[in-house]
């Protein structure tokens, strides 16, 4: 198929940036979206132009690096997948595809389609861990039984890949789904209890500091999340947050 691509080009964080049109031809429906981008870039390199910069690494939907806003949707038109898992069979010959970076004040553009997600890092540094030393003097793993239900739920929360699609899909650029998933994983496990109150307070405080918006329950994040992280996690975080503040 032949396609027109409208791509956001921005030299660096200082540059104003603009949409630029490109054409690609002979795209196979079996290509992944990023392989189509590779074809474009090879074309650009061969004509002496600078290729389009975009984040990607594992190309199998698990590292959370890829992050394109395609035709107005984070990770594009398909559901439950990341950009790298999107295939060209989702598009038709002659289509025009708009490709932009994540847009959020807390995710400034570094170059073209690459954004800075360090805000997520700082939120996790604020409390996304259990303070246990890696000394090898821990107790036997089976001395602490954990109900299968709790373990499975914690696992569901822990599958978040930190991609940021939730923020990009939210009209308020809220990071509640991401932070909720992280808080939930530990809140659901007995190991996480000791520091639970401080954790949620610190992580939420950092989230606010980073300039993410408020959650107004539109649910757009859940729809676009490639890992199916549920809104339940936001509710759980809110409960944790309230009870942490009551305890003072």
């Amino acid at each position, binding site marked *: 198929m032949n396609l027109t691509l409208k791509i956001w080009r921005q*030299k*660096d964080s200082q540059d104003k940036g603009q949409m630029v049109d490109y054409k690609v031809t002979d795209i196979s*429906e*079996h*290509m992944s979206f*990023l*392989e189509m981008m*590779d*074809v474009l870039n090879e074309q650009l*390199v*061969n004509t002496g132009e*600078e290729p389009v*910069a975009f*984040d990607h*690494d*594992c*190309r*199998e939907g*698990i*590292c*959370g*690096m890829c992050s394109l806003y395609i035709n107005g949707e984070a990770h594009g038109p398909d559901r439950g*997948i990341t950009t790298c*898992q999107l*295939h060209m*069979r989702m598009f038709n010959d002659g289509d025009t595809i708009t490709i932009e970076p994540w847009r959020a004040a807390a995710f400034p553009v*570094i*170059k073209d389609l*690459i954004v*800075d*997600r*360090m805000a*997520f*890092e700082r939120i*996790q*540094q604020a409390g996304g*861990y*259990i*303070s*246990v030393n*890696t*000394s*090898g003097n*821990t107790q036997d*793993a*089976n001395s602490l*039984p954990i*109900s*299968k239900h709790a*373990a499975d739920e*914690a*696992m569901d929360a*822990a*599958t978040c*890949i*930190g991609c940021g699609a939730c923020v990009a899909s939210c009209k308020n650029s809220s990071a509640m789904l991401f932070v909720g998933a992280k808080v939930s*994983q530990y809140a659901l*496990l007995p*190991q*996480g209890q000791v520091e639970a109150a401080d954790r949620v307070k610190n992580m939420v405080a950092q989230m606010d500091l980073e300039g993410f918006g408020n959650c107004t329950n539109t649910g757009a994040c859940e729809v676009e999340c490639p890992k199916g992280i549920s809104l339940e996690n936001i509710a759980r975080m809110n409960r944790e947050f309230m009870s942490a503040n009551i305890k003072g």
Partner: protein
Amino acid sequence: MALDSKVPEGPIKDKWTTYKDNINLVNPANKRHIDIIVVGTGLAGGSAAATLAELGYNVKAFAYQDSPRRAHSIAAQGGINAAKNYMGDGDSNYRLFYDTVKGGDYRSREANVYRLAEVSGNIIDQCVAQGVPFARDYGGLLDNRSFGGVLVSRTFYAKGQTGQQLLLGAYSAMNRQIARGKIEMFNRHEMLDVVKVGGKARGIIARNLITGEIERHSAHAVVIATGGYGNVYFLSTNAMGSNATAAWKIHKKGAYFANPCFTQIHPTCIPRSGDYQSKLTLMSESLRNDGRIWVPAKIEDAKAIQQGKLKPTQIAEEDRDYYLERRYPAFGNLVPRDVASRAAKERCDAGFGVNATGEAVYLDFASAFERYGKEQAKIHGIKNPSKEEIIKLGQGIIESKYGNLFQMYEKIIAENPYETPMMIYPATHYTMGGVWVDYNLMTTVEGLYCIGEANFSDHGANRLGASALMQGLADGYFVLPYTIGDYLSNDIRTGKIPTDTPEFDEVEKEVKDRIDFFINNNGTKSVDHFHKRLGKVMWDKVGMSRNAKDLTAAMAEIKAIREEFWKDVKVPGTADEMNVELEKAGRVADFLELGELFAKDALERNESCGGHFREESVELDGEQKGEAKRNDEEYAFVSAWEYKGEPADAVLHKEELEFKDIELKQRSYK
């Protein structure tokens, strides 16, 4: 320099304990004055950085991604081994040790593998304490599964995302230390060379991938944890950015490179669909438990399928060749990874491949649907079930076991594997070879360590499933923190290592010159063009089946591609900005050297062992006719290569392998 593996004396069971009791320690107050650089934050580097920081050292950690959590360890699906014996099936440290040495076809160092087995249980304790949500049974205890070719269930897992959860565990431990200021994290930074002062590793030169700035970082010791070099094949199950640059650069500065030809080609990956293919995706090996592998028996059927004129479901049972069951009646579809991979290649080379590229075989679940379906009908007391009912019931069972994999397959191939057989083909997956290290995990350069997939130590010529995650975390959490302390105890009075010295000047200049060369080269071909050509030579001539003629030709061809690369590669943009093509150029330049050494090593090792199959070394008669033949008399050694300029001139040093606790046996799967 003679190789000294520094394996402690004494019985194998006591070596590690005695070692730990006798090493020098650094007291907590002094640790504050010691800096350590850790390059790479996957399972190996992440766990090491967190532990060293917690002990009190000042750690600087580096990763090329935008977060430690994105290292390629994240992609591991299956699980992690540990000798916990929670299943009560008779597992022990010795058994895990034994299986791992045997699985590596007796080409690993006994003492290292024993230590690995010994600390394996600790890894699980540690991870659970960190909040890693491993799978549990209804009693709330940890669940285990069995994994390829062993007799016990010792594999811990977290859905199909074990690597992700283990990495998030290590990452959380890092975050705690980053928050305390004990780890300084350098995301989107690439190490481009190591700096030695007075023969010791004392720092690195790194490029800030956002600004292009070249930076100097000093430390008392440097740890390399940068993963494997599978991308030398261009297509592999590795991440797009996975590279050998750090390992190769330290090789050029004096670290020996061991067993480069030991690579694992995994039999169950999703096949390539065209020339635009950028990477390959693994399908968990567990599928072979229920799927039967076949190709058409008649060449005209194969041709018709390749041209899209015939469907697999239209081929009658008697016209199918279940070649693994035919060739290996005892193990059938469950033969080890290397055997299954070669058998697939053999059929496809003979023209029986089943997709347009001719490089795919079927993995068919039809008989599993039927088998499980009948079982279910019985369990649920359904009398005289129809064929459709049976299939439906059976599909339900397969879905509960592999639903996510079937779904992933359908997303990529756009075919429903419940209705038509899956297509699979082998792909490069793991590199057992790597930087040579001694028992302390130190390379042949003093103060320079190498851990995780980047080193060579524990897997020999083949890797069993679920053992790489174990090794990475063992190295980082439990081994390196001891061994590095012993070395650093001599550095408590050294003081900060300055970076404004001639040694740093010199290496920085080398790095900058190379970058400037790329930017100013004005060639005509993209980096990928050369990478793909290298990959093709590697796959065709240094892939699953190797012989002297092709290996010799490969060395010459790789050299020729390398020379052309330096003349004609084109890198747009500038050096002082984010420049993805420039990053790739540096990595491919190193792969173009490593590939040649790889072929040389394969040529030198004229025996078949594990993932390395030499057509000249096969059983000539008897039951095993045509199968791999190991040669313990002549090749029970580690080849450690010393850099001497051109890869072809590398000098071989042998570390003889002694097996005191295990008897060497030939593998048989007939």
